[in-house]
């Protein structure tokens, strides 16, 4: 009979597990530290005035109203453009496109677009929208640029979501004599919607925090008004923060921190909503 006695305490295992735990805890602690630091720095500036005021050369009088309004307008416009196109695109690729070699090309194409650095979209927007289409540094030019940027995100999420719709359901619908579109509308869309919404919210959150391409397509740094149309100039919250960060005056760094608190609150809320939607989706699927 072979002994089953333990010979030694597995030190290696303990160390390994500690390392793994550390790998999760340390970044989360860093995140929390970061949040705390930023909040500590910025919370003093954070009041209703800060949100309701226009920018000012005097740090303590400055506010983020036009930037916030610009961000919201820009992001809404972006969603308005990107979501229908992306969802339509995902539907076409999954439900209509013949799954041949061409589909493979599109697949790689979209995967690649999702990984193209945002500055490249900025360059594209600058050349195409700002210059070629002469939209100048308008809200719509920014929104179109961001749309292209977030579209792959929504397309990928939507396609993944559509793919989780079992083929059997499609066949069930077609098998009862439904046409393709009535099948898509009746079966695929309702099932894939939560995934699409999750993807859209994540895209929204990304667009909300994006700044590099907007710098390139010319968001304004100092603006005294709220956007009043798609051709309006605009600023956004990240741009405003960037602008403040770039000022050598300490008081503006504080403003930047306060702006960051607002930005983070918004972005984290969006993430949380996305997580919740995803969770409900998973629970419904079980």
């Amino acid at each position, binding site marked *: 009979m072979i002994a089953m006695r333990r010979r030694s305490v597995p030190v290696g295992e303990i160390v390994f597990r500690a390392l793994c735990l550390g790998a999760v805890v340390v970044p989360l602690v860093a995140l929390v530290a970061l949040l705390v630091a930023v909040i500590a720095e910025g919370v003093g500036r*954070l*009041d*209703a*005035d800060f*949100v*309701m*005021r*226009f*920018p*000012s*050369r005097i740090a303590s*009088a400055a*506010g983020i*109203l036009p930037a*916030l309004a610009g961000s*919201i307008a820009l*992001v*809404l416009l972006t*969603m308005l453009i990107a979501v229908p196109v992306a969802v339509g695109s995902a539907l076409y690729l999954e439900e209509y496109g013949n799954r041949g070699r061409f589909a493979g090309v599109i697949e790689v194409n979209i995967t690649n677009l999702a990984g193209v650095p945002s500055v490249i979209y900025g360059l594209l927007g600058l050349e195409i929208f700002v210059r070629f289409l002469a939209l*100048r*540094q308008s809200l719509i030019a920014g929104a179109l640029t961001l749309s292209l940027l977030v579209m792959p995100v929504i397309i990928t999420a939507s396609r993944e979501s559509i793919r989780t719709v079992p083929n059997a359901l499609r066949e069930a619908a077609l098998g009862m004599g439904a046409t393709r579109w009535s099948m898509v509308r009746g079966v695929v869309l309702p099932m894939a919607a939560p995934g699409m919404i999750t993807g*859209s*919210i994540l895209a*929204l959150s990304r667009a*909300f925090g994006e700044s590099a391409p907007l710098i390139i397509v*010319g968001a*304004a*740094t*100092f*603006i*005294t*008004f*709220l956007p*009043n149309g798609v051709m*309006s*100039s605009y600023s956004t919250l990240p741009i405003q923060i960037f602008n403040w*960060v*770039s*000022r*050598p*005056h300490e008081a503006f760094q504080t403003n930047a921190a306060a702006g960051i*608190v*607002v930005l983070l*609150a*918004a972005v984290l*809320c*969006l993430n949380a*909503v996305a997580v919740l939607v995803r969770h409900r989706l998973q629970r419904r699927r079980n």
Partner: protein
Amino acid sequence: LASVLLVACGGRGEPAAPAQQGSGSGAATPAVLGAEIRMDGSSTLLPLSEAVAEEFQKQRPSRVTVRASGTGGGFQKFCSGEIDIAGASRPIRPAELKACADKGVAFIEVAAAYDALSVVVNPQNSWVDFLTVAELKRMWEPDAQKRVTKWSQVRSSWPDEEIRLFGAGVDSGTYDYFTKAVVGTEHASRGDYTSSEDDNVLVQGVTTDKLALGFFGYSYFAENAGKLRVVPIDDGIAENGPGPVSPSAATVLAGTYQPLARPLFVYVSVASLARPEVKALVGFYVANAARLSKEVGFIPLAAKTSAAVQARFAGGKTGTLFADGSAVGVKLDDALRLAEAGQTAGSGSGAPSVK
């Protein structure tokens, strides 16, 4: 949906206060504001332009955007009619003049304030007492690239340590002016330094680095005076004051801080002036430039000069005083005097005259 979420989330940190009237009073009635007034150009001038825009806003709600693409970038847009007002930290160049003329853009040149390009080092830098223009040139000229990398190469008594340079971005008028004044050729400098349109990069860079040396507008120095040490400059010309001179209102107005003192301008499109809100804004600009200059760290024009400028604007005098481009060391007063004498360039040479 998204917007509701957004507002709800954004509002979570804030008490839901009624919209208080801050400095942006009247912002809630955008319908009466008219078209946008677009200001762009010099980043040096940005603090002043922002201040003007902000104060003007208090008087008359309007839709003003201020960008800072740099003087060169500003002129590019100005001459293609994209913007109404271009800030500049140097006079318009002949090439830009021609571009404006080609597009039929007539303008009025308004001197706004003086600036003193300040050369700064870290407060811990104990060795730099002053710099001569020749030394600056040795540091910054194109040939210095990759060669002049040690303090000791500038002046042999200085330490044999790396020299880290920070300077304005190449789109800026500041850069143009500095290169012309120091190197002698506009837009000619070494390339291996930290060049940024972002002044904070420069301030931060010098603030935190003992081996650093940088140059930028006086206002940025003034705002961070505690963290920087400004270096007196000796231009070697006796009439500009003997020995090294530090930048200050006095030295600039006295004309002794040479060659790095310079006037700042705004250029206003004549076509845009037809719009009352633009006219009002520029009027406000001219009227308040002196007061606000001081506030944001510029050196206001002398009262006499200021009056001349206002008169020029009121008279709708188009064209530039500096048809041959920026002239280092030329004093604004001289230029205005010459202009008074009818020797203005620009209205005659390029720009179509406006009655």
